[in-house]
C-alpha cells in the first residue's frame, strides 16, 4: 500500500516529532561563533535527495546495529534527554542531540565533485544541561571526517569530540554510557534500557526511526565545581531517511517528552502554521510500562498555552495545558523560564514538570519541552 495515510500509529508520532525537531537545519541566522569552517547554509542550499535512499520500511530494525549511522539516508538525528534528581531532590536535565546531513551518497566519487562535496557528511550537536538554577548550552558543527564527529562502528559510539554516547556491543540489556564535558561542566551517565523500543513499522513516512522511551539512569553531574550523584530516567530517539526540513516550509512543531510517575511515557507534538493561521494539530502517544503504545487525541485534543515568556526575540509558551480524549489532562510548567539557548537559531529547550490526571487518576511527570524558533511574534 502506498496510499498516504495519517501516521496515526502512536509510534509514528514519536519519530515524526524527532524529524520535526530538525528545524534548526534551515536557519539563516547562523552566528559567527561556530567552530568550523563549514558553511552550513551553503550545504543546506545544495541538499539534494539524489543518490540517497528512502529507508526500506519492511526490514526489521536490529540493535545495536541500528544505533549506528545510516549513510545511505540523507539525514539522521539522535536525541537523548535525561530527567534526573540530585540528592536533595534538585531537578537536573541533560540533553544531547546529534544531527547528520549526508552530502554525498555512498558509492559516489567525491573527487569528481565540486568543493562542497569533499565533505561526505556534516554534523551538528547540542549539549544542554541544567540543575534548575544554572546551566550550560553548547552547539557544535563539524564534518564527519577525521573522527571528530560521527558514529564510530568499532566503539559503537556516537560522538562529537568529548561528547560520547556508547552502546554496548551486542547485549540488548547492557547499559549505555553517556559522557560529556564543557567549560566548568562534566557529566557521566549510565543508562539502562527499561522498555522495549518502539518504531513505526509500515508507516508511510519517508524516514525510519525508533525510540527507547525510558532508560533508568544513574550518574554524576558536575556543574561549576560542585559534583553530585544523580538518578532518574532518560528518553532516546533515533531517526534517519528524508527527515523534513522544517523552516523551509509552512509548518513548525513543538515537542513535549514526559516520563510519568505511573510508568507511562508521553510524547506530544504540536504543529502550527508559521503564518499563524489555522488551529494547531496534535499528535500524541502514551507508551505504557510494558512498552505498548496508545495513540491519544483521536477523539479530541486540546493544547493551549496559558503563559508565554518573553525571550530575546520570541515569546515562548512555557506553560502548556493539555487535554487528550477523556483520558489525559495535564498542566505542564517550565522548571525555569530562562531555558532559551542562543543556538542556530534561537531555541527554547528545557526541563518541565507536569501534573494532572490520567484515566481518572492523579499523575505527575518530568521531561522536556523543545520549542522551535520560527513562530510568528
Amino acid at each position, binding site marked *: 500500500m*502506498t496510499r498516504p*495515510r*495519517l501516521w*496515526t500509529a502512536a509510534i509514528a508520532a514519536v519519530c515524526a516529532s524527532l524529524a520535526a525537531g530538525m528545524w534548526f537545519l534551515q536557519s539563516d541566522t547562523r552566528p559567527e561563533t561556530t567552530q568550523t569552517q563549514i558553511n552550513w547554509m551553503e550545504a543546506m542550499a545544495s541538499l539534494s535527495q539524489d543518490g540517497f535512499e528512502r529507508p526500506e520500511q519492511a526490514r526489521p530494525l536490529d540493535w545495536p546495529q541500528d544505533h549506528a549511522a545510516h549513510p545511505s539516508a540523507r539525514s539522521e538525528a539522535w536525541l537523548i534527554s535525561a530527567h534526573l534528581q540530585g540528592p536533595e531532590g534538585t531537578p537536573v536535565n541533560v540533553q544531547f542531540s546529534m544531527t547528520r546531513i549526508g552530502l554525498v551518497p555512498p558509492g559516489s566519487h567525491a573527487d569528481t565533485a565540486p568543493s562542497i562535496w569533499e565533505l561526505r557528511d556534516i554534523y551538528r550537536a547540542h549539549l544542554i544541561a541544567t540543575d534548575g538554577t544554572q546551566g550550560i548550552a553548547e552547539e557544535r558543527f563539524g564534518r564527519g571526517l577525521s573522527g571528530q564527529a560521527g558514529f564510530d562502528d568499532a566503539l559503537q559510539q556516537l560522538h562529537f569530540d568529548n561528547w560520547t554516547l556508547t552502546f554496548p556491543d551486542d547485549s540488548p540489556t547492557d547499559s549505555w554510557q553517556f559522557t560529556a564535558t564543557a567549560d566548568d561542566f562534566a557529566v557521566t551517565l549510565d543508562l539502562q534500557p527499561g522498555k522495549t523500543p518502539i518504531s513505526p513499522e509500515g508507516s508511510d513516512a519517508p524516514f525510519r526511526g525508533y525510540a527507547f522511551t525510558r532508560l533508568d539512569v544513574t550518574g554524576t553531574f558536575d556543574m561549576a565545581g560542585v559534583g553530585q550523584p544523580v538518578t532518574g530516567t532518560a528518553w532516546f530517539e533515533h531517526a534517519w531517511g528524508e527527515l523534513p526540513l*522544517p523552516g523551509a516550509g509552512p509548518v513548525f512543531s513543538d515537542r513535549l517528552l514526559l516520563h510519568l510517575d505511573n510508568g507511562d511515557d508521553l510524547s506530544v507534538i504540536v*504543529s502550527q502554521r508559521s503564518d499563524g493561521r489555522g488551529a494547531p*494539530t496534535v*499528535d500524541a502517544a502514551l507508551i505504557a510500562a510494558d512498552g505498548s503504545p496508545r495513540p491519544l487525541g483521536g477523539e479530541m485534543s486540546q493544547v493551549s498555552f496559558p503563559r508565554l515568556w518573553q525571550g530575546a526575540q520570541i515569546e515562548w509558551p512555557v506553560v502548556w495545558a493539555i487535554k487528550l480524549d477523556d483520558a489525559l489532562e495535564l498542566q505542564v510548567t517550565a522548571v525555569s523560564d530562562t531555558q532559551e539557548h542562543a543556538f542556530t537559531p534561537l531555541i527554547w529547550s528545557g526541563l518541565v514538570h507536569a501534573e494532572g490526571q490520567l484515566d481518572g487518576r492523579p499523575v505527575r511527570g518530568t521531561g522536556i519541552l523543545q520549542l522551535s524558533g520560527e513562530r510568528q511574534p
Partner: protein
Amino acid sequence: MTRKPLVYTVSALLAGGLAAGLWALAGLPLPFGPDPDRSRSPTGRVAESPQRAGDPQAGYTALVNQPYVSCGMPYSAYRRIAPETDPAMLLPGRTGRNAELPYFLTAHVNDAGVEVVSNNCLVCHAGRIGDEVVVGLGDAFADFTTDPRQLVTQVGRYVQGPDESAAWQLWADRIDGIAPYIQTSTIGMNPATNLSWALMAHRDARTMEWSQDPLLDPPQNTPVPLRTPPWWWMGKKNAMFYTTIGRGDHSRYMIFASMLCADSVEELAEIDSYAPDIRAYLADLTPPAYPYPIDRQLAAQGQDLFMSECASCHGTYGDTHSYPNRIVPLDEIGTDPLYAQTMTDGSLDRFYDWVDRSPHGGTVRAAPAEGYIAPPLDGIWAAAPYLHNGSVPNLAALLDSRLRPTFWRHVTPQDYDPEAMGWRSETLEAGKDSVPAGTERARVYDTTRPGYGNSGHTFADRLSDTQRQALLEYLKTL
C-alpha cells in the same frame, strides 16, 4: 484500514444556473423570494427535469483529468509521503501526470507554477471489488473519522519554498474551514452533505469568494452518517440524493464538488463547460455484473415475487424496464428519519437560499422531501452496506429485519460474502462505548447512535425464508 488524502470535495451540492447568477451579480432582485415551498418537495413521484446533453466519453476524460478541485498539496511533498503508486490504483484514460497518480488524485499546475495534487470525485465515488477499482461504486471503506488537519500538517512538513508554501496554505485554509464539520464517527460513513453546508457557510454566494470566517451560521458539527450511493443509478433518477434535494440541472449540482477551491464565478463557469459531459458519463454508467454463479431458475421465482412485492417502488428491470422515481414518506418507510428530518426541519434553509443566490441559482434548486427515494436496484449486490445510512451490512438482513445486527463491523481486508450479499461483516456484542477510542472504535457500526438506526423497510419480513432466498437470487441479476 486504507486511507486517502482527503481534500474534501462536495457532491451534495446545490446551486443554479449561470443566468440567475448574472442577475445576482447585477444586484437585481432574484426572481423568487424565500418561499418555503420552493425549498421543499412533496413525497411521491419526482418529476423529470431536462438535462443538458453531453458526451459520456469526454465526461470520463474530464472526470479523471480535469482539476475541478483546484487546491491541494504540492506534488513534491505528496511524493515524499507516497513515493510510489500501487499499480492497482491506476486508471485507464488518464493523461500526463495523472497517468501515474492513484485514481483518487488529480494533478494540475497552478498559476504560480506549482504542481498541485487534489482529490477528485473518486475519493468517495470509486471502490474496490477484488483487485479492481470500480469507478462509480461508493467507497464503503473510506475513512472520514480522523481530523484531516493532521494530514495537512504532515504534508506541510515536506513543503518547501514560498510558492509551494502558498499553495499549501490555500489548501490548509480550506481544510481548516471545513474540518470541524466533516468528521464522522464510523469508517465508511460519508460527511459530504454536511461538508457542502460548511463550504456554503464560508463562500459568498454571488462572487464565490472564500471567507475564512463563516458568512452564514455554520451547520452542526456532527455530520449525519451517509453511505455513498453508486453513480449508475443516475441514469434513472430524476433528482439527486437520498432526499431528492437535488433538483434541476444535475450537472451543476454534482460539479459543486469544486466548491472547496473554486474562488470565482469564472472558475465555476470553466468547470461548468465540461460538467454536462460528466453528467452524461454518470448517466451512461452500467453496474458491474454479479461475479459469482446465479441459480437462474430460483432467480425467475424471485422475479415474480419482486414484481408483486417490490416493483411498485423500485421499478422493473430487463429490456423493458421502468422506474417510478418514488419518494416514500418517513412514516411509511420507517428507516432512520434523522437525515430527512434535518433536511426539512428548517435548520438548513439558509443554505437552500444560498443555492438560489449562487451563480447556478435558477437552474438548480435545493428542495428535499421528508422521505427517501426508493432507489433503482441495478448493481445492488455491490452497493453494500444498505439503506441511506449504510446501517444494514447485507441484503439478507435487508430482506429480514430480524437478522439485522445492532452492533457490527466490516471484516478487513474487504471481502465479499456471496451468501449474505454484502461486504463480509461480523456481529458484535456491544457498541462503540465498549471499545477504546481510535480505529477499533471507528470500525464499529453502532445502530443505537443517532442517525445510525437500522429500522424500517420491513417489506420482505412477512415472506418465507424460501421466498427471500428467491428474491436474493433475483437481486443478483440486476
